[in-house]
């Protein structure tokens, strides 16, 4: 006559489920508290994503424009584009021909007859071609600008291309050397850096609060059972046999709270997605939520379950000292 491990596991789960069901009020309030903490955790994840996307879209706004003289030969410009593109710190170089620039100018000023007339009177195309350079990181613009300065002082572009070695400079102007443009990029960098730092601090604080509240919730739920735990010990129950059903119960709190949180986020992100897509730099939180649902499921439900298990393990231990 021996109790099999399977029987023990069955008894543990049965007791855990029964306690979960019968302690109705404690169960309900624990699930609600856990829901609030897991909801906060979701907010932390969402704010991280939103912050990253917003900062990225801000960073994408920074660039350097290289304005070429009208006489600059296209092959030299393209050669410079290739040289720049080959640099490890350059993300993208976009070439806009002088014709395209003119078309864009006309388009921008289509309601401004005076300007268009003046343009017509000039005859020909007064606008040069433009290369728009985006660096991989905001800090790299300085190095790129330095390189362009060298090119400019050498008196041409298209280093490495033998064709038509320049006698006159082809670069008219690089806007990074404008104080205002440079200041704007520097400022952007300091803003995104500090936003990232503040974001990280907030994320850490909220995560700690989440863990603390979950622990306290489970501890309170188990506190109500401290006399029971004492009696169980006095009738000679083993520590693990006493602890395991409480862990099953707390894991169920985490599981249900996690599922409830996932359900809550559906209408909230749906509503927010429409309201804020333009504000968050084209990030639709609803689309993001749906697209990464598995990730959210694992993070939120997983956190609930793991927190429940650890918190109950520690909380029961407090009362297992008899």
């Amino acid at each position, binding site marked *: *006559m021996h*109790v099999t491990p399977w029987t023990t596991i069955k008894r543990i789960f049965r007791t855990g489920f029964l306690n979960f069901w019968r*302690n109705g009020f404690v169960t309900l309030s624990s699930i609600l508290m856990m829901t609030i903490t897991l909801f906060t955790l979701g907010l932390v994840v969402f704010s991280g994503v939103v912050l990253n996307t917003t900062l990225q879209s801000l960073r994408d706004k920074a660039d350097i424009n290289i304005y070429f003289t009208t006489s600059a030969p296209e092959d030299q410009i393209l050669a410079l584009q290739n040289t720049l593109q080959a640099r490890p710190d350059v993300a993208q170089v976009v070439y806009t021909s002088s014709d395209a620039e003119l078309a864009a100018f006309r388009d921008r000023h289509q309601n401004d007859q005076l300007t268009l007339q003046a343009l017509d009177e000039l005859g020909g195309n007064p606008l040069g071609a433009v290369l728009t350079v985006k660096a991989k990181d905001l800090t790299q613009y300085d190095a790129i600008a330095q390189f362009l300065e060298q090119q400019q002082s050498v008196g041409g572009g298209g280093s490495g291309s033998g064709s038509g070695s320049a006698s006159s400079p082809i670069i008219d102007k690089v806007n990074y050397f404008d104080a205002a443009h440079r200041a704007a990029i520097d400022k952007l960098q300091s803003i995104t850096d500090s936003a990232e730092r503040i974001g990280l601090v907030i994320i850490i604080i909220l995560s700690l609060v989440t863990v603390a509240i979950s622990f306290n919730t489970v501890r309170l739920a188990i506190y109500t059972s401290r006399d029971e735990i004492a*009696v169980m010990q006095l*009738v*000679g129950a*083993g*520590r693990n*046999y006493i602890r395991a059903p409480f862990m099953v119960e707390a894991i169920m709190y985490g599981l249900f709270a996690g599922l409830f949180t996932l359900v809550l986020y559906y209408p909230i992100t749906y509503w927010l997605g429409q309201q804020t897509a333009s504000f968050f730099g084209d990030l639709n939180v609803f689309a993001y939520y749906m697209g990464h649902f598995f990730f959210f499921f694992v993070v939120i439900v997983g956190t609930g379950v793991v927190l429940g298990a650890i918190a109950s393990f520690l909380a029961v231990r407090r009362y297992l000292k008899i």
Partner: protein
Amino acid sequence: MIYFDKVTKLYGNSAALEDINFSIEPGEFISIVGHSGAGKTTLMKMLLAEERPTSGDVYFQSANIHDVSRATLNQIRRRIGTIFQDFRLLPYKTAYENIAFAMEAAGRTDEEIYSDVPHVLELVDLGDKLNHFPHQLSGGEQQRVAIARAIVNQPDVIMADEPTGNLDPVNTFEVIQILKKVNDLGTTVILTTHNKGVIDSLKKRVITMDRGRIIRDDKEGMYVL
């Protein structure tokens, strides 16, 4: 079987127990009497290792119960059935489940539980209240469930700490009758009580305590304070 060897328990500077020496033989029915605060409950807690003595040892058979492994202590506790004044049933378990829990803790099989729990509840006259929760039972009924829980594993010792303290005379009489019956079947019973009538009618060994000390130990004692 049970031996207290120079046991002293201090709470701060005040002594709850002071130099306690006595032994209990198998099959004895022993009552411990004394005013509130005399140290009766502390004595019981020492025997269950619920509290550690400040000095001295408590032996259950040959084992020093404050110096054994956790597993051994659990084994010993399963051989001591406990009954408390406030019943101490598990509130979210039915009468049946409360008793089943003690059997589960003792490693009994499901088949044993299915057959023994209804039987023991029948013995304490609660055969029809298997599925009642403690709050659905009267004080006397709760205490009988507690007794059923204490005896179901056929322990060597029953420890009853003021089991009749919250009961009316009829229920008190019934509880004492059950304890006597259990003792007649060979189980050692340790009873603490304030009830003079109970002690005087038992005509068994009585230990009288006062301020943490044993002041009398009479073979067929009476309630004398």
